[in-house]
């Protein structure tokens, strides 16, 4: 039995309504756990004052420089003691979940056991960066909890100016749009940069995210410094049986309005069956005995729309790989920026492909570590030094897929023009 509950008139309001209530959960914990009792007291105080009342500090586990988020209550009695003493220390452990956030129930229960024993019992599945957040341990118990999680095979995630925990979509495990092995790539990257993850020494945070296709379920373009997005180089594949089934169900209006009319590059046309172009870059499929879809794959930008609508009837190609975009971040300090294309296509199938990929990641990380200013993300760094200089630094050739359009102002010195033309010719010859 835990100590008596504080009055929580505001929080009680959050027990009403049909959506699962975290307050009801906290109250369940408070029956056995004093920390949860005082957490409810502290949170109610925030609801009344409409202000936060935690402050940070420094705390960690042996051997690591990050991964624990220390929290100390700022609500004190006149004598300086905590008003909510059992939640006076309420630290979070960020633990990396299995890629794709898959679990078996045995593991989940074991995680619960550890956190019931050493922490508040409150678990967030998951944080926005992709960690399991075990919320609420005393300073003394942080190490104990970590040791048990670590014995189970789990490791701490990142915090501070470090490589952060990554996230990958479900991808190959259950999604037909997947164009590479997201989980394998995710594992290789984290394991390559464990030092950068655990011992914060970068100019600022650095995030990788992995999406299996341009649907970008992980929001990697907007939320990561290094976005790896699956794509394909050859033609969209088709399946006539599924195309006819789709058409029989949805009809011509939906085909025209929802598929053909919404292709961003007008790459899809409707044709008479038997009258489709016989070009190596055209995909076609009969949707009925009289009509066929024709897709010009040279104009297709791999946006995924038609494939999403007609799943199975239209499928991603077979010559798969990834597009890499660098520089995504949130608002601080120049305003939100998206990653932009650095590698239009890179195959990711053989061991050698993976080595090339990891080499690139290493060059980017090294360049960032050496050239970014303190508290500067990759996106800000690239904006400051210019994309061309960044590419030179990471030894990547320019490519017109990197831009929306060429420059629209004359303010640059083009004295090196002839040399650059020679390089462009050399690139063309090498391709």
């Amino acid at each position: 039995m835990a100590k008596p509950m504080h009055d929580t008139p505001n929080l009680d309001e959050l027990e009403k309504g049909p959506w699962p209530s975290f307050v009801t959960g906290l109250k369940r914990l408070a029956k056995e756990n004093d920390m949860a009792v005082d957490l409810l007291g502290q949170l109610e105080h925030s609801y009344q004052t409409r202000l936060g009342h935690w402050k940070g500090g420094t705390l960690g586990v042996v051997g690591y420089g990050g991964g624990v988020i220390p929290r100390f209550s700022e609500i004190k009695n006149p004598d300086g003691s905590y008003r909510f003493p059992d939640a006076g220390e309420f630290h979070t452990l960020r633990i990396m979940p299995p890629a794709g956030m898959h679990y078996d129930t045995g593991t989940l229960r074991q995680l619960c056991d550890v956190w019931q024993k050493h922490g508040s019992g409150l678990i967030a599945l998951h944080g926005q960066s992709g960690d399991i957040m075990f919320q609420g341990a005393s300073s003394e118990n942080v190490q104990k909890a970590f040791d048990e999680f670590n014995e189970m095979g789990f490791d701490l995630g990142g915090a501070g100016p470090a490589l952060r925990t990554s996230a990958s979509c479900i991808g190959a495990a259950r999604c037909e749009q997947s164009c590479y092995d997201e989980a394998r790539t995710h594992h290789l990257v984290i394991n390559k940069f464990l030092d950068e993850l655990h011992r914060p020494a970068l100019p600022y945070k650095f995030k990788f995210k992995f999406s299996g296709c341009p649907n970008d379920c992980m929001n990697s373009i907007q939320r990561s410094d290094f976005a790896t997005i699956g794509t394909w180089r050859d033609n969209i594949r088709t399946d006539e049986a599924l195309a006819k089934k789709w058409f029989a169900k949805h009809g011509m209006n939906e085909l025209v309005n929802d598929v053909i009319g919404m292709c961003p590059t007008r790459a899809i046309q409707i044709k008479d069956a038997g009258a489709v172009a016989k070009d190596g870059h055209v995909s076609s499929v009969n949707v009925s005995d009289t009509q066929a879809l024709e897709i010009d794959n040279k104009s297709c930008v791999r946006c995924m729309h038609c494939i999403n609508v007609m799943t199975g009837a239209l499928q991603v190609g077979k010559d798969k790989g990834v597009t890499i975009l660098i520089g995504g971040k949130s608002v601080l300090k120049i305003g939100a920026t998206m990653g932009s294309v650095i590698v239009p296509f890179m195959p990711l199938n053989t061991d050698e492909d993976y080595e090339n990929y990891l080499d690139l990641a290493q060059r980017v990380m090294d360049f960032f570590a050496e050239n970014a200013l303190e508290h500067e993300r990759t996106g800000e760094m690239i904006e400051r030094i210019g994309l061309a200089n960044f590419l030179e630094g990471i030894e990547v050739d320019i490519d017109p897929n990197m831009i929306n359009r060429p420059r629209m102002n004359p303010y640059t010195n083009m004295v090196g023009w002839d040399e650059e033309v020679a390089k462009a010719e050399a690139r063309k010859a090498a391709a």
Partner: protein
Amino acid sequence: MAQPQIRKPIEGFFDNKKFLHPKFAANYGNWKYHDRPRPGVLHHVSNTGDEVWSVRAGTQRQMDHYTVRKLCDIVDNFGEGFCRFTIRSNIEIPVSSEAKVAPLVAELENNGFPVGGTGNSVSMVAHTQGWLHCDIPGTDASGVVKSMMDGLIEEFKHEEMPNRVRLSTSCCEINCGGQADIAVVVQYTKPPKINHDLVAAICERPTVVARCPVAAIRPTIVNGRPSLEVDEKKCVCCGACYPPCPPMQINDREGNKIAIWVGGKNSNARSKPTFHKLVAAGLPNNAPRWPEVNAVVKKILMAYKEDGRPWERMADWIDRIGWPRFFEKTGLPFTKYMIDDWRGGRVNLNASAHVRF
């Protein structure tokens, strides 16, 4: 006395293979297509003809271990021992026969976990820490989300929107919740209030000066002690100085307002990804249930539901109808603060004769 042994951590990120449902493992990278037999259920078919049904249900994200154990019981008794979570805190429980779907759905619903969140529904809100655990929050996170989802649960359980709707909330302007079709984000309206007694001891002054996006912070001396001052005419009330210097308190009981942004889109489908745009601000930080915020969110959603065409995301819909009609249909006031005056903001002006009447 013996010294306690210092344990060295075992560093490394383990393979996820042993956590995969057997159907996921057997058909890894070999799926052909999927459909949705009902909202909340995904049916995937592999190239070998193998099938798996995944039932998706909403959770409160911040879960007590009893809730996690309850979910484990459901997975063990009505599923097949494996589950996963989506990035929006929904649980997905895979089963290998269609016959198991209905009992699993019923068990989840009976235990208060709404089944839905798939396809063109409103999924769970991506959210942050708030008063529960962050050290800089302007509002709560889980409470805002709970009150919002209480009102949107039918939209979670049904697929009646033109396309999927992804929501986020963020309890400061840093926006950890991220870009979304509709994002609810704290907006400060007052410059930081500085406690000059503490600055010298707590803050690294050059670091704080460098943090400000508009160079509004200057070192100064107050009462003989080094401190910082803010040019309040320049200050854009972003709160960036507050995390590195807590004595520069940005949060204010009345000054913290809530803003609403729409049309963020991360997917590349149809249009390129876009950031969300400001459409409402000045809403009160009205704990514990934020009715004013929820009313605006609902108004926007209903306008989109009524007028959006199939497959149009919020951003696509607004691209078609234009901003004047967006404001007309939602009844939201268009104010001068929506005209972007940040660096590079002129690209957001209409430099054409394309005008809607």
